[in-house]
């Protein structure tokens, strides 16, 4: 038969493929390791360049931890705003229940793609003291420049697209057939959302929220323009760096990491576990 001669060639071919496969496997493993170590590099560097003494002296300065409080407070308010306003938008985007869904998505993407510095500049022109919105705020004795409010606004702008896009993906992963069954079993839409949609989307929502938290904690570009005061940690790092140099700024970098990272990491491990349980 015509294919009787081909097996040896096939064996050679598959052996070759195996070698190439293992070579490319080694290469890709090496690449993965390099990028992973490179990504972790800054964290490792930070830890190797800090001594316990440095940390205690830097943080012992009176008022040194005030920016931490400012950052945590503004970040918490930012998350609340995102949860309240971003979640419904993400759900509607995921279900395609908005007219012109592409336009809505493009709007969210737009704020993601704008450099934070540019956002800060434009925010001045939007909510600054001599704008209609600024004047409106002035009537209720509020100002959206160099205030706590300004800081929250800047953080919302910098973190919102990360949350909305992440939450949209989380909602899109919920099977509509399951929501349909919940409705047929007697749950009106609000109860379906509470008993089925939100619990199923929760791991993804938590991840999106964690990313948004990290962005809000580290927000700098828009903040430095519209909310120089009161200092959050990123500005504290910046001004310390400007005034007294690298070594004194480093402890605050550690503070920022300690504040910004645990929530995302916890969210990551929790959502990974929840997903694993559903798949098992």
């Amino acid at each position, binding site marked *: 038969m015509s294919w009787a001669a081909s097996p040896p060639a096939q064996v050679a071919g598959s052996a070759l493929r195996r070698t190439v496969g293992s070579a490319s496997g080694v290469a890709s493993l090496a690449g993965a390791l390099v990028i992973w170590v490179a990504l972790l590099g800054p964290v490792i560097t930070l830890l190797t360049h800090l001594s316990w003494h440095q940390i205690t002296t830097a943080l012992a300065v009176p008022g040194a931890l005030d920016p931490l409080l400012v950052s945590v407070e503004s970040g918490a308010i930012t998350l609340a705003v995102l949860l309240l306003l971003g979640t419904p938008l993400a759900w509607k985007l995921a279900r395609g229940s908005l007219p012109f869904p592409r336009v809505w998505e493009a709007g969210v993407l737009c704020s993601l793609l704008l450099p934070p510095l540019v956002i800060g500049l434009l925010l001045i022109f939007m909510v600054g003291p001599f704008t209609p919105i600024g004047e409106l705020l002035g009537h209720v004795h509020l100002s959206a420049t160099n205030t706590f409010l300004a800081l929250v606004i800047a953080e919302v702008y910098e973190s919102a697209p990360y949350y909305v896009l992440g939450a949209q993906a989380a909602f899109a992963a919920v099977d509509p057939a399951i929501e349909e069954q*919940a409705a047929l*079993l*007697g749950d009106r839409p609000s109860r379906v959302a509470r008993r089925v949609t939100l619990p199923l989307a929760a791991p993804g929502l938590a991840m999106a929220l964690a990313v948004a938290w990290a962005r809000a904690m580290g927000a700098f570009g828009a903040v430095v323009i519209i909310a120089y005061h009161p200092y959050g940690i990123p500005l504290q790092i910046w001004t310390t760096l400007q005034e007294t140099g690298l070594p004194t700024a480093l402890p605050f970098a550690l503070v920022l990491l300690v504040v910004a990272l645990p929530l995302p990491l916890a969210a990551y491990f929790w959502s990974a576990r929840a997903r694993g*349980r559903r798949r098992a």
Partner: protein
Amino acid sequence: MLEADVELDRREFRLSAAFAVAAGERLALFGPSGAGKTTILEVIAGLQEPGRGTVVLDGRVLTRTAPPRRQVPPWQRRVGLLRQDPALFPHLSVRQNLAYAARTRPGPGTGRDEITRIAERLGIGGLVDDRPARLSGGQAHRVALGRLLASRCDALLLDEPYTGLDASLTRDLTDLVREVVAARQVPSVLVAHELEAAQAFADRMAVLDRGQILQLGSPAEVVAAPAARRVAELVGYRAFVPLPEDPGTVAGVHPDRVIPGRQPGRGVVLAGPVRSCRPAGAGWEATIEMVTIETASAETASAETASAETASAETASAETASAERASAETGGGGAGGGGAGGTLVPVRLREAPAGGGDFTFTVLAPPCFRPDGTRVTRAEEVPT
């Protein structure tokens, strides 16, 4: 009692179907894919709004497009729907899945003991603490059924729930649903594109094609006496042989409704050479090239036809049929070995036909159809 009268414009045709299902009755909507079967279920469940129509369940008007308009939302309908995807709640245990409706519809049937009882009856008593992800396909379907039972729905809709499962599992689950319907005395509607699935479930069948109900009858009746040629095609008639003495009229041959040998009192006798023969299940499927045909009202006629009508034939046109007739009248002897070929008739037999010579067989009481596809009652259709 479930009464549905649904009209809805689809891209290629208008869906228009009306039927009533009594309490405890099992109706099958049988038809090819894309006939509109699922749409009908979704209208009954309230997932779609019909262009025109009404849905009434136990006297409750669920859908009415005529004023005063009414469209009860799905969560107030108490209509259970099972689909191919059991759609269990993956974040809840089996017990929580079963008891899901208890919070919105508390009452007898949703208590902890009742849930345990249902689980046990469905053979999933040992799984109530598991997560759905750990269940096999059959177990998941049992839980989905149990969840509907515990929700005490007033009607049961099944959208080909068990396609893709293996045969014995399908049989078990179908029996289970039949038991449930009998015990609960709810109207039930099954959508199926496989005749066997419809027959295994239903005590009444509606044959649906392109949005129209072509026939409504018992599963046996629909197969034995299809109301139109299209129905015959859908329920498995694979050859339509022209009747020599009646131009344009054809007799439908179902592969299962033939017996070997010549028994003119029981139907139409056909004969011809065996063109192919292969095992089918426990028996054989043979294709006979029809050369002679003998009907109750005419002498044996030779029917070496010019145009072969295959199993998947389009609706016969009068022209083709009369052409066949003409050739049948002028045609020669019945050898037909290398000729243009007559109508190929697939038949299923218990024993393979003996080789050599023509094979003679009797088509039991074949339904006959006019050129326009409507049914005509002839002497051949003596009851068997």
